């Protein structure tokens, strides 16, 4: 029992630390079909966009950026947390009911743990689909237009 609670503590701790981490992530689709995922925005110059991908700073010419999406992780995490909380409650209840009926000899915390993870997955997917940040198509736009669109997109996301 105590060990499972310790495990649940790690689960909550990781989620909380993730909530305090970087919130905005960029997804970029480049002209040659390359994709940049989970990049942190650094700088927008006249001709380029600078992002941090992993530990590396990478600069892309705006002319090669075809599509862009700004993802707010806090919204996804919110969904994961709600899902996990509902899963934990449901799992604990089901575990205790099964144990009191004698149909399940397992510790109720086992079912709570399983439902917490399932709830977290469902909550994450639900929030990712419910509040989809739009993919902005920049194809055919000139560099100045692309810069203006990206600027307004980033400002809008900061509000």
């Amino acid at each position: 029992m105590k060990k499972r609670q310790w495990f649940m503590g790690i689960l909550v701790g990781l989620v909380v630390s993730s909530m305090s981490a970087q919130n905005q992530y960029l997804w970029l689709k480049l002209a040659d079909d390359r994709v940049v995922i989970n990049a942190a925005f650094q700088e927008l110059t006249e001709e380029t966009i600078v992002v941090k991908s992993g530990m590396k700073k990478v600069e892309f010419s705006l002319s090669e950026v075809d599509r862009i999406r700004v993802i707010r992780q806090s919204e996804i995490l919110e969904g994961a947390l709600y899902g996990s909380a509902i899963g934990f409650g449901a799992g604990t209840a089901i575990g205790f009911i099964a144990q009191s009926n004698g149909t399940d000899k397992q510790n109720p915390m086992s079912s709570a743990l399983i439902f917490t993870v399932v709830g977290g997955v469902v909550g994450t997917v639900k929030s990712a689909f419910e509040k989809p940040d739009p993919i902005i198509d920049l194809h055919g736009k000139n560099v100045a237009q692309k810069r203006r669109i990206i600027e307004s997109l980033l400002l809008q996301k900061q509000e």
Partner: protein
Amino acid sequence: MKTKFTFTLLALLAVVLVLPSTKTFAQTKEYGLETSFAERDLGGPRFGITYVPGNTALVDKLKEKGIGTTISQFGWHFEYQIIPEGGGPSFIIQGVPMVGGVEYGTLIPAVTLAMGIRLPDGLEFGMGPNILFGGPKGASTSLVVAIGQSFNYGGVSIPLNFVLATNPDGNRFSVVFGYAIAKGIK
């Protein structure tokens, strides 16, 4: 019973071995519109420590074989990551064959197949089946629940995972660490 177990084991091994080479299901067509996904291969070595708590049947069996409750683990991680168009949370399928107990002069093989989700900052969680060979019944299955965080260091993905394997014979807690070179997105 033995046939059923052999079949389950073969099916699980087949999935683990086929994972790195499976490419076909990543693109689907729906109502005439192509839905595109990116795929990333994040396989690599894994090592860690497993702790078996309590006075369970599993602990008794380990004691019988002269094995302690803290066991080293070494293995390889096969991962298939599906990133939806536009990024966001990605869907991951992992196959992890490992061997433990080398410090006790023995090998305890185990295979895990885990399915879950990874968020943009690298937080990941999931669950799946595990088969441990050499348990109280010779071989036993468990449910594995895992949570972890992948750190990216210059293109190298460094995952740290906390794993709970639970079954009526006893629980196992593992901390698994490793690295993977993120190959290009397709």
